[in-house]
């Protein structure tokens, strides 16, 4: 059951910043290191909510993966524009 490998990939992505950066640049290369099927690889590279749901990825894991796969999602989920207005020094 390589869904376990899929979730292991996502766990590695957020625990290993270097892997995260490499994935954003060349996701195909990173995916080669995981024992997943061709279909799973295709769905991961697709990265759409529908593909990830079809893959059986846990909903919250989809959020984490989406941030790695989709820069627009990372931008949509960034809250830095609010911090100054609540007096948070985020430097």
């Amino acid at each position: 059951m390589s869904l376990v490998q899929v979730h292991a990939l996502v766990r590695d992505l957020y625990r290993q910043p270097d892997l995260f950066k490499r994935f954003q640049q060349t996701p195909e290369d990173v995916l080669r290191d995981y024992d997943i099927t061709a279909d799973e690889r295709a769905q991961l590279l697709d990265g759409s909510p529908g593909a990830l749901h079809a893959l059986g990825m846990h909903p919250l894991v989809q959020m984490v993966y989406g941030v790695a796969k989709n820069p627009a999602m990372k931008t949509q989920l960034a809250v830095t524009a609010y911090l100054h207005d609540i007096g948070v020094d985020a430097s």
Partner: protein
Amino acid sequence: MGKIVAGYGTAHIMMARHSAGERGERVFAGMKDIGQRIRALEPDLAIIISSDHMYNYSLDMQPPFALATDDAFVPFGDMDLPKEAFPGHAGFADGLMQASSEAYFDLTRLTNYRPDHGVILPYLMMSPQRTLPAVPLIINTSCDPVPPLRRAWQLGEIIAAFCRDKRPAQERIVVVGTGGLSHWLGVPELGKTNPQFDHAVMDAILSGHGKNLTAWSQEKVRAEGGNGGQEILNWVCMAAALGPSVKGERIYYEDIPEWVTGMGGLELRPIAA
């Protein structure tokens, strides 16, 4: 005896500024208002009841109820949130672990916990300078089986008894239940919300009848509030800690499909006996 001086329910997420227009700004204003109210109460600590978004939990293990017992926390940094540390309260947390055990309620101890947005965003609203000690209480709201609402209520009652009976005189505590309300995440219904569900939850809690929500089955919550709607567990636990003798005030509510969530905030103040 310590005193729970107020309870709050609030959303624990926002998305890109101005991506939900005035409705998003009203949510932000409401969250700031809650932070200001908490600061005005001059609490000694805050219990923040929230979910973990798979940064500490994993599919390997999902404790139903877990308490973060460290004396300081370094945020995980998701959503580009700052990673500067903020204080915990190990003495309080250890005592609550013990009290819970004695009440036959199993709490899992979390150490080296890295708070994600579910804790740090509400925390920064109430303590932007990161001075208020916080005790994060994590409820599994995302991996089946999530605990029944009745269990969250039981834990809230244990928190109330612990604060009342075991904590130092004059200690002032706020309890904040975070998340929700209705939302569907990672499923085909993504983006759906249900204001009727959201108002039913808020109305029950505001009127001091939060316990009525414990009659709701998980199936009902999932059907009407979405898989993300299970985060009302955090609100129900907070409501139980405050008990039925409360004065409730709705602070904000906005249905924000752009943020895939029905977002609400409220305050409960205890009515003196």
